[in-house]
């Protein structure tokens, strides 16, 4: 029972990371129709910047610096390169963003080396939270809470602001978004930066829990794509549902039958793709893209 509870908590933490990355993927796709294989790179950059800043000034400044730096990088990337690919087919987008992901990964390797890096033993990471027989690191619980708060803020942004309206409209109907005209350019920049900042923030916040390596970005990206497909490309709640589902599935399988832990999420995605290609909460309009 204790083991199961711990597994469920682990699944929650892992799932929330997936949700945070997937939300970025999904709002970027919804607004810009861009399939971004470089999104995992934002996570990795955030993790490394976070580590560097944390070593100097502590975890707090790291959680501010990482998302800002990643958002800046994302905006430059978008302006210089990706904008030209918005209108191209999914295959071209996958190719170019895959290439960018490669370049980022190798640049990180060049700067920080191939070895897996660990966080310094900060006092904040040592505390545990105990409830009866269940002992769980306090930082992880705090992390989970923080991601939930962040998701609520993102949701409010999507629901209550004009930019959010553009995102939601874009998922349903491209022409409507184009009718909104001038706003769209600013909105697409903001949405792209926001998605990247979320990934960067989560990268910085999660790396005390998971270790950091140049390949970390891609390692989180692939399951996050699984999440997006399971939940429904373009759907916020789909990303949330899919992320928690995949996180828990992976974590519980690790407990019950470890060899299948990595297979089960792909199996889950394959089943969803074949039975309900638009995803659990997706709209059928987008499947042919």
């Amino acid at each position, binding site marked *: 029972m204790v083991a199961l509870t711990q597994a469920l908590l682990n699944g929650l933490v892992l799932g929330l990371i997936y949700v945070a990355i997937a939300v970025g993927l999904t709002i970027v796709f919804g607004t810009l129709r861009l399939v971004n294989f470089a999104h995992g790179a934002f996570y990795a950059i955030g993790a490394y910047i976070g580590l560097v800043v944390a070593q100097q000034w502590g975890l707090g400044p790291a959680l501010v610096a990482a998302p800002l730096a990643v958002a800046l990088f994302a905006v430059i990337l978008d302006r210089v390169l990706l904008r030209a690919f918005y209108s191209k087919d999914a295959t*071209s987008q996958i190719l170019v963003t895959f290439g960018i992901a490669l370049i980022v990964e*190798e640049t990180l390797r060049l700067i920080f080396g191939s070895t897996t890096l660990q966080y310094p033993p900060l006092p904040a990471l040592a505390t545990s939270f105990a409830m009866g027989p269940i002992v769980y690191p306090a930082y992880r619980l705090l992390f989970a809470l923080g991601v939930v708060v962040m998701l609520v803020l993102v949701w409010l942004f999507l629901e209550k602001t004009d930019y959010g309206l553009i995102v939601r409209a874009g998922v349903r109907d491209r022409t409507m978004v184009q009718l909104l005209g001038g706003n769209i350019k600013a909105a697409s920049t903001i949405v792209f930066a926001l998605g990247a900042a979320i990934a960067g923030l989560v990268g910085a916040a999660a790396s005390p829990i998971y270790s950091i390596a140049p390949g970390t970005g891609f390692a989180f990206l692939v399951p996050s794509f699984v999440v997006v497909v399971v939940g429904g490309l373009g759907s916020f709640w789909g990303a949330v549902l899919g992320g928690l589902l995949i996180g828990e599935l992976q974590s519980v399988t690790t407990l019950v039958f470890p060899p299948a832990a*990595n297979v089960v999420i792909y199996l889950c995605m394959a089943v969803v793709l074949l039975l309900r*290609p638009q995803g659990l909460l997706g709209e059928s309009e987008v499947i042919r893209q």
Partner: protein
Amino acid sequence: MSPGLRFALLTALGLALFPFAFHAIDGYAGLATQILIMSIASIGFNLLLGYTGLLSYGHAMFYGGGGYVAALLLIRVMPQHPNLWLAVLGATLAATVLALLVGALAVRLYGIYFALLTLAFAQMIFFVVEQSQDWTNGDDGLQNFPAAMLPIGPYSIDLGTPLPALPLGPFGNLSDIKLWYIFAALVFFGVMIGVRALTRSQFGEVLTAIRENEERSTLIGFNAPAYRLAAFAISGALTGLAGALRALYDGSVPIDSVGIERSGSFVIFTIVGGVQTLFGPVVGTGLIMYLEAVLSGKLDYWRLIEGVIFVAVIIFLPAGIVGTINNRVKERRALLAASVRAK
């Protein structure tokens, strides 16, 4: 001379000269053989991407799958009489069956969904291979399996045998080349001739039509998913064949051969060389593998260079190296024809 014959002769001539180039430009002796083998995989990948528009992110499942099946056939089935024909044929067949199974599910999807479903299957196979310690040796891969012999008539040939010694000045020594190269070149030649015929055949004609306008194609009576499935199976078969040859040539199958980076490498090879061209995947594979062989030992950041080349090609030469050359030649010819007409 018919275009087909000219193509065959030029290809054969190129293959005869190819291995001698590497000594002069700092490559190692086996590189020519490895490039030819990997090119076969890229050609298979290109058949799918170029003629159906489907981007597979899971071709390592056929490549690595072919390698593992070939090795396991030697280790488990015929350790006493390791027969190269049987190992290669068995592996290719297995890759074809795998492609038919995965393809049956995947060919109704498009774009990102197709890419992700193939990626999902490849990942599943990667983890199954990694977890099946007893059979696959897990992360360490398979090594030291019996060297397969190539039975031809009454003879049993060891492809590891070098050619007789003969100094060739700047081109090294004839004995740098093993019989493996000749075998790989013959298989490669067969694949090139076959793929060229395929793209000009009725099958290639219908695939091109489906790619250009699927809605019209289904409403004149073509079963588009069936054609895509056939293309996927042929693509998987060629990639599996390459995987088997590489395993037998290297005498080992690393776990990376079914990994996601291997799937990505076929994407890079093909895009750099040129999608939907016959020689594009070969040029791309050769260029990247050559640069890797020369640079990866000296520079830490070879993979960064690879990434930059890849993105640069996508942005500046979207048709790839061979595709761009082809287009230039076509333009030149059209201009020439126009000026002749003008006179």
